[in-house]
């Protein structure tokens, strides 16, 4: 019997037969790109001879990686993207006045709904699976084809179900669940597969934590990270989507390739050691002192309001160690405003943190916190590859926002309960 992923493909298939492993052609509901990947896509769009986009409402451009611009070249790229958007009447260009990090921004702005088939020229496009959409990262050529035709070929993936049961301990979040999972199955543990996150613990997670989990499905190699629609999804969407959408669920006896069960009751915050998100350890198992130079709270993984609240909870009344640079990056303009109105900025500033405008910034080593040789950072981001935040001789540890904030105070990686 079909899984959630297969049902969404079935609904969009225009050529071929939907069955895991088969190649099909499918109709797209949304094509997204960002400022690093769009320029190559525009070259391809021209090479392919397209003269218009398939649907001006269904193509979304986001300037987020290199906003604010970090070089003359990136300024030129942005202008090229703006010109294209104007010429081809692209309805949704997110620039500085309506900015945000794509994967926090698109759901917030009502571009994402259950049952949708989305491609994005950015690997973390899988984030939208948290709303029950099949969303997957592709490259610039696929983006160009998608923009021009509204169709793309896919290999229908097998699905793996992950059940999380038990009671989630304090200081343990969606970030820890997904880091633990990647540590368990490996950085290629779900390659080509659709992950489906399920169970009592997922039902009780906030939407923010669900986005975090789906966001990092790609770090296990997955094509999508899906979460079934429920009342929390409905609540999240009610002021964002004003049309009817179709909701799918995996059948009771759906043909999952594997079902993996976790009991989370005794889980601790997880830390991913360099140079892969699969190198995870429970924080209590770390038996060395790891001093840090920089701490980053932000990104499409953990830059949402709930993440900033968690950081503020730890930072309130505390001071960031003088030798540490704590950089906080609210993921969208809306989140930035909310954080400001709630008084979180006052807590951050009094603690000695720096607050940046929304941007991907340091997360991909672009700007706003690039690391030098020998430097060590702890971040709430998604990748700790060699050189990811700058110098190949730097090191990045991944953690949840509470742990990052606590470590910024201590100057070394510690459990939040040591600070709060």
């Amino acid at each position, binding site marked *: 019997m079909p899984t959630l992923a297969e049902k969404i493909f079935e609904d969009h298939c225009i050529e071929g037969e939907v069955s895991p492993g088969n190649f099909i052609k499918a109709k797209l509901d949304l094509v997204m790109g960002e400022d690093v990947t769009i320029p*190559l896509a525009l070259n391809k769009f021209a090479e392919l001879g397209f003269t218009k986009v398939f649907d001006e409402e269904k193509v979304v451009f986001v300037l987020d990686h290199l906003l604010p611009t970090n070089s003359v070249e990136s300024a030129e790229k942005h202008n090229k993207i703006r010109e294209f958007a104007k010429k081809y009447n692209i309805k949704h260009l997110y620039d500085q006045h309506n900015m945000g990090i794509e994967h926090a921004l698109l759901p917030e702005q009502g571009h994402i709904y259950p049952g949708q088939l989305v491609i994005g020229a*950015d690997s973390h496009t899988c984030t939208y699976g948290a709303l029950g959409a099949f969303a997957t*990262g592709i490259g610039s*050529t*696929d983006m160009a084809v998608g923009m021009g035709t509204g169709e793309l070929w896919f290999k229908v993936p097998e699905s793996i179900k992950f059940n999380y049961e038990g009671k989630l301990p304090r200081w343990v979040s969606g970030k820890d669940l997904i880091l633990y999972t990647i540590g368990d199955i490996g950085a290629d543990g779900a*390659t080509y597969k659709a992950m489906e996150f399920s169970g009592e613990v997922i039902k009780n997670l906030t939407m923010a934590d669900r986005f975090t989990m789906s966001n990092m499905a790609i770090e296990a190699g997955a094509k999508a990270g899906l979460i079934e629609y429920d009342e929390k999804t409905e609540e999240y969407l009610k002021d964002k989507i004003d049309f009817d959408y179709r909701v799918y669920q995996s059948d009771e006896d759906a043909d999952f390739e594997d079902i993996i069960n976790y009991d989370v009751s005794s889980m601790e915050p997880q830390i991913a050691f360099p140079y892969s998100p699969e190198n995870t350890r429970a924080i209590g198992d770390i038996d060395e002192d790891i001093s840090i130079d920089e701490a980053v709270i932000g990104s499409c993984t953990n830059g949402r309001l709930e993440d900033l609240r968690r950081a503020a909870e730890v930072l309130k009344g505390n001071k960031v160690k003088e030798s540490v640079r704590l950089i906080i990056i609210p993921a969208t303009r809306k989140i930035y405003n909310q954080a400001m109105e709630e008084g979180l900025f006052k807590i951050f500033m009094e603690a000695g943190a720096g607050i940046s405008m929304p941007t991907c910034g340091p997360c991909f080593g672009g700007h706003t916190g690039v690391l030098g040789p020998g430097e060590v950072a702890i971040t709430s981001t998604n990748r700790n590859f060699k050189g*990811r935040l700058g110098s190949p001789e730097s090191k990045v540890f991944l953690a949840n926002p509470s742990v990052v904030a606590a470590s910024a105070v201590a100057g070394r990686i510690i459990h939040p309960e040591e600070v709060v």
Partner: protein
Amino acid sequence: MKLEGKALKVGKNIDTDQIIPAQYLNITDSKKLGKHCLEGYKKDFPKLLDNETILFAEENFGCGSSREHAPFSVKGAGVQAVIAKSFARIFFRNAINLGLPVIEAPKAVDEADRGDVITVNIEEGVIYNKTKDSRVEFSPYPDMIREILMADGVTGYFKER
């Protein structure tokens, strides 16, 4: 499609940041990107790559970002084909779309040493290590993927239609 070159090997989980570090993402020319291919893996690695290279890798080659700059740089460096134990999904797809042959063949990876002379026959699905006199077969590509590869990528494929 027949390829011939010399083997060069890299390890496991070679991510797209190692293939093409972020500082080069403003470049959109394949040859210029090629000059920095795998620079994040080892600083001097790009100098080892030329149009006689057949690159061998362990598991999960190309994991991470969707940046097409990664396979574009591999192609721009002249690399004939990448043969790996496995590929990350987005890299695999991007490579095919650009007409860069990517082949999963674990046995061929284990057998190859740096400098071995390698031939690849894409249609027949055969990798032949001349130096070791060893032949490894791989599953032929599905029709659509083979057609895209033969057309040197999606651009050629669309034009042919």
